[in-house]
């Protein structure tokens, strides 16, 4: 950072002084041996959970569809290896709450028998719709963490005539190097995936943004992209959260994404490098997304590095493979800035899990929070230009609407504010709490609207029923009276009661 910039308070984001990416990033890629069982979650994406198409007791093969997509935004799930389905039901989710979610548990037979899979020799000759269909069938979702299913995203891009693809090789989180590893070892796959995606979307150019702290990846990708003029490799400054789509888009294209809108609204579609590699495998080799490269890192790990692991492997098994040198004080899925703390190690990984961290007490140590001194460090650090200190003050006072009026919705939960805070305030937790509370309120409002509708409908129905009954009764009475009258007229006698 130059002196002038420093006097001006610096730019957004933080520069973690030690990104802890090496030596893990430099170790050779390892393939994890098959564990005894896998728990493949049904909801690994944004949207509706997949619906199981196998039953307990069924034998499955590697690559076999075990749960189908449901609805427009969803993704199917495939078996990562061969074995027998032993349970379909709740397992602990990789989430701090420790709450369960549904998963298909497969006890592996160790033979790893694969389903016959057929790729296409020239995916670029296929109709874009066919490419998208194959991406959907392979269960590919955004692997950078957003987990939006890739096929509907590509469709959206085609519909909005997106011209530019931004390929996210930012991987700005400390400790993580799985995308780095993909770019170093599978640069050709990534570039091929980018070309297939460009074909599917109809985009003319692709900008691959890679943080400049990954020179090996940049070199490998440049080499791979040499033949394709439409694909440009763009080194970007290493600054967290460069890997956030909005920030990367601004750095690469100079345009900001309007608040509350998707990048497609400004003609840009962002995809992760690992997603592109997965698209390549899906189209060329017919391979569904059931395994990925996971960074296992952290002070408690004996042999940190990148591991090719099946989706749904238990964190416990993953850590057993790399070994622990001491008891971790915290397990995190994802990076240290945005990752989720795990309640215990018996949780499965998901498609978007780029890293598992076993952190020591020293690594997570933070002094006790003290009062906010309004120093404004968080304002400088916030990549969205928010005022975390003002929002946090309102949340603390229980003024959630006041927090929302300061655009709490735009918060990425990137953690820059909490990272730089000299008072060590738990800002992210405070914002997440406020967002959750506001969401719950909105839900309650919707619910109230629904019940009000139902109650009104019921009241109307009851009134109608009563009216109809009354009318019927009146009719009967009238009929009886008429009968009476007709009976009385000739005889002049009273009806026997």
């Amino acid at each position, binding site marked *: 950072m130059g002196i002038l910039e420093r006097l001006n308070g610096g730019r957004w984001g933080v520069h973690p002084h030690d990104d802890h990416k090496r030596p893990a990033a430099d170790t050779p890629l390892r393939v994890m041996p098959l564990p005894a069982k896998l728990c493949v979650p049904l909801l690994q994406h944004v949207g509706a959970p997949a619906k199981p198409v196998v039953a307990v007791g069924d034998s499955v093969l590697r690559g076999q569809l075990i749960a189908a997509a449901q609805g427009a935004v969803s993704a199917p799930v495939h078996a990562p290896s061969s074995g027998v389905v032993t349970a379909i039901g709740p397992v602990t989710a990789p989430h701090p709450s420790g709450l369960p979610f549904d998963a298909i548990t497969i006890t592996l037979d160790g033979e790893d028998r694969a389903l016959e899979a057929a790729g296409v020799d020239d995916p670029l000759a296929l109709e874009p719709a066919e490419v998208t269909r194959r991406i959907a069938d392979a269960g590919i979702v955004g692997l950078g963490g957003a987990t939006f299913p890739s096929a509907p995203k590509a469709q959206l891009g085609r519909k909005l005539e997106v011209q530019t693809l931004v390929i996210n090789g930012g991987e700005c989180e400390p400790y993580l190097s799985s995308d780095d590893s993909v770019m170093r070892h599978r640069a050709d796959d990534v570039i091929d995936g980018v070309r297939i995606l460009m074909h599917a979307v109809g985009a003319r150019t692709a900008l691959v943004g890679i943080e400049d702290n990954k020179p090996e990846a940049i070199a490998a990708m440049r080499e791979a992209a040499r033949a394709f003029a439409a694909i440009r490799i763009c080194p970007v400054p290493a600054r967290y959260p460069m890997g956030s789509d909005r920030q990367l888009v601004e750095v690469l294209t100079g345009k900001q994404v309007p608040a509350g809108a998707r990048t497609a609204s400004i003609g840009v579609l962002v995809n992760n490098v690992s997603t592109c590699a997965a698209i390549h495998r899906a189209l060329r080799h017919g391979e569904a997304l059931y395994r990925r490269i996971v960074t296992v890192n952290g002070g408690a790990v004996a042999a940190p590095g990148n591991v090719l692991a099946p989706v749904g492997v238990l964190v416990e098994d993953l850590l057993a493979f790399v070994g622990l040198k001491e008891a971790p004080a915290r397990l995190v899925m994802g990076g240290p800035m945005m990752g989720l703390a795990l309640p215990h190690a018996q949780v499965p990984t998901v498609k978007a899990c780029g890293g598992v961290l076993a952190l020591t007490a020293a690594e997570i140590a933070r002094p006790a929070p003290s009062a906010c001194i309004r120093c404004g460090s968080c304002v400088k650090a916030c990549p969205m230009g928010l005022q975390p200190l003002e929002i946090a003050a309102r949340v603390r006072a229980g003024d959630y609407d006041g927090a929302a009026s300061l655009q709490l919705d735009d918060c990425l939960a990137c953690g820059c504010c909490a990272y730089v805070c000299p008072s060590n305030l738990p800002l992210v937790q405070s914002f997440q709490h406020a967002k959750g509370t506001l*969401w*719950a309120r909105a839900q*309650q409002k919707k619910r109230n609207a629904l*019940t009000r509708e139902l109650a009104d409908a*019921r009241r109307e129905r009851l009134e109608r029923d009563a009216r109809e009954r009354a009318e019927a009764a009146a009719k009967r009475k009238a009929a009886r009276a008429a009968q009476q009258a007709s009976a009385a007229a000739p005889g002049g006698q009273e009806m026997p009661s």
Partner: protein
Amino acid sequence: MLVPVVILTLLGLMLGLMLGYAARVFAVEGNEVAAEIAAMMPGTNCGQCGLAGCGAAADALVAGAAPATVCPGGGAPLAQAIAAKLGLTLDLGGLADQGPKIAEVQEDICIGCARCLKGCPTDAIVGASKQIHGVLHQACTGCGACVTECPTGAIGLRPLPQTLQDWNWASPSFA
């Protein structure tokens, strides 16, 4: 003595006329606040508050005869919205420990008498005579009307199960 009296009388007359005219031009009808609050309420007229329906509760709120937490069905969010609207101080103590609840039918006791169906203000219970009844989670307000209707005690209220979607971080303890 006469002059001041005349002057004051004239002054009063003039200003009175002006105000009379203003009152006609800027007239406002009815109590809009009560109507707005009634619109915020669940509108099920479930009677849990002990008042005759949501409209009555809104009137009581505006009159200051009921606390902001009067509506159990609306829960804490509604109480907060009402308090903000009326500028009341809010004591959520009574509400906080309860949390949202929904009705649940114990299938082994249910005799399928269908009485609860009639009692439910939101038609949240499905079933027919001689059949086991079920509760629609989305529609149930947890008002408890069905509980009193049930002759066998098969219906009870239970807390809404927590899911990954509605789980929330606790408010951090700030220094």
